[in-house]
């Protein structure tokens, strides 16, 4: 069942990908990927490790260039943008990295202030402090404000990483393996946080994961990536109600093993 009321038409389309190819040497990672993400929608991209899930969101954010195909984000073709326009677009995209990627020489406060003060130079000091406190309260970690990343647990790092992206108030959120390496309870907390972010900030999101619990808890739509292409797309139940052995074994591995 769909968690949010999504209007799936061209006017509400935030991400539009057609015929996306990407290879690294002889390794053809993406082989003609098509995907649409609509306003306020959480799309989960499922797949085994090394199937190109992270590559997909790195192309969307302009970190990697595609070999072929079009990637249109918020009405702009990402691979055709100059540096200035790409920078402007990136202000509207939040990227939560698999290993959180917190700047380890900075405190939590500095990690959050860094993107804000550098991109919104007209903000007063009081507004910056207020913004940092607000996002930290939002992820429930205000008490860690003066700690170093090395002093945080894995789950806390993930939440601070998400908070750092939220401080720029993005329209699109890209989550790379948000629950990888976390215990089940922390996974549930992260899943809830992803849903809270969607409700509070009205973001459209792509959630890259191989964790089916995360997919079920957060996804309005699930897309199964296999051999560089989306094998099935739809609700969680639709995707897994198939006799296809590859999808069945993926499901069984997650829920039985």
């Amino acid at each position, binding site marked *: 069942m769909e968690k949010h009321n999504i209007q799936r038409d061209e006017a509400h389309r935030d991400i539009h990908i057609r*015929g996306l*190819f990407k*290879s690294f*040497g*002889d390794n*053809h990672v993406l*082989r*003609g990927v098509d995907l649409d993400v609509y306003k306020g929608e959480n799309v989960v991209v499922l797949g085994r490790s090394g199937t190109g899930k992270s590559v997909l969101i*790195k192309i969307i*954010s*302009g*970190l990697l260039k595609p*070999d*072929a*195909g079009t990637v249109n984000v918020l009405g702009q073709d990402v691979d055709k943008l100059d540096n200035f326009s790409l*920078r*402007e677009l*990136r*202000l509207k*995209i939040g*990227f939560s*990295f*698999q*290993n959180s*990627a*917190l*700047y*380890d020489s900075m405190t939590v406060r500095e990690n959050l202030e*860094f*993107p804000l003060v*550098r*991109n919104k130079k007209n903000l007063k000091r009081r507004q910056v402090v207020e913004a940092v406190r607000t996002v930290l309260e939002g992820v429930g970690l205000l008490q860690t404000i003066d700690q170093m990343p090395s002093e945080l647990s894995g789950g806390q790092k993930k939440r601070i990483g998400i908070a*750092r*992206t939220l401080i*720029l108030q993005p329209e699109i959120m890209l989550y790379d393996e948000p629950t990888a390496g976390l215990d089940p309870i922390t996974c549930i907390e992260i899943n809830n946080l992803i849903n809270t972010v969607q409700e509070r900030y009205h973001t459209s999101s792509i959630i890259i994961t191989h964790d089916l619990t995360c997919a079920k808890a957060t996804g309005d739509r699930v897309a199964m990536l296999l051999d560089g292409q989306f094998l099935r797309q739809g609700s969680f139940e639709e995707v897994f109600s198939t006799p296809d052995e590859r999808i069945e074994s993926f499901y069984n591995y997650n829920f039985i093993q």
Partner: protein
Amino acid sequence: MSLNQAEPRKYFISKGIDQFFTDIYLTFRFVMRFFKELVKPPYEFQEIIRQCYYIGFKSLSLITLTGFITGLVFTKQSRPSLAEFGATSWLPSLVTIAIIKALAPLVTALIAAGRVGSNIGAELGSMKVTEQIDAMEVSAINPFKFLVVSRVVATTLMIPVLMAYTGFIGLLGSYLDVHANELTSFATFFEKAFEKISFLDIWSSIAKAVTYGFTIGVVGCYKGYNASQGTEGVGRAANSSVVLSMFLIFIEEVLIVQITNWIRVF
């Protein structure tokens, strides 16, 4: 796009030779990008000052010790040879020529390559493999400008300052030894010390220090910025920063000495 278009990659000569020329091309592009980002606003003054502090001030204790011992030992080892000819009064000018022309720039650069170059390589390498550089990029921050330009500018500015300091400390070490043995006064020592030093010698040393500083910064940043393959890659970046910096410093030393000699002749 048909997958048949992506044929297995062929090498022009061999994997190693292709890689060598590719590395030269990529380094050239890296340096060109540095100059492009250097002149383009906004300027990272705050980060440059922070890096100058780390590179300059934090190296002082090591530089002080090395410079002092270099001056002292060089003086002690030169004395017996000069004493044979009764020419120990030449010690100040001999030591000064050696320190100003060669030892101060070279010792400073080698110490900095070990301490600063490895630090930059490891720091940026670690940031690269833990996706911190990507995180800056997706936060609409230019990581090249913030991380690379600031560090290269800081090493280029601070190595000449450290070199001047090494020279002074080295001469101080030399003076203490000369004073202890020949009872030469401070004023006489420094008057004799700079008798044989020309402006060309000083400018040549400054040119050396600027070149070495730039080299240490660029090599450290290039190796760190392009690190891959996890923690092993970080170690490799730190190590190769030091090795390549030292190798280039020796080549530059030979070239600058040769160019200075040509200028001296003309």
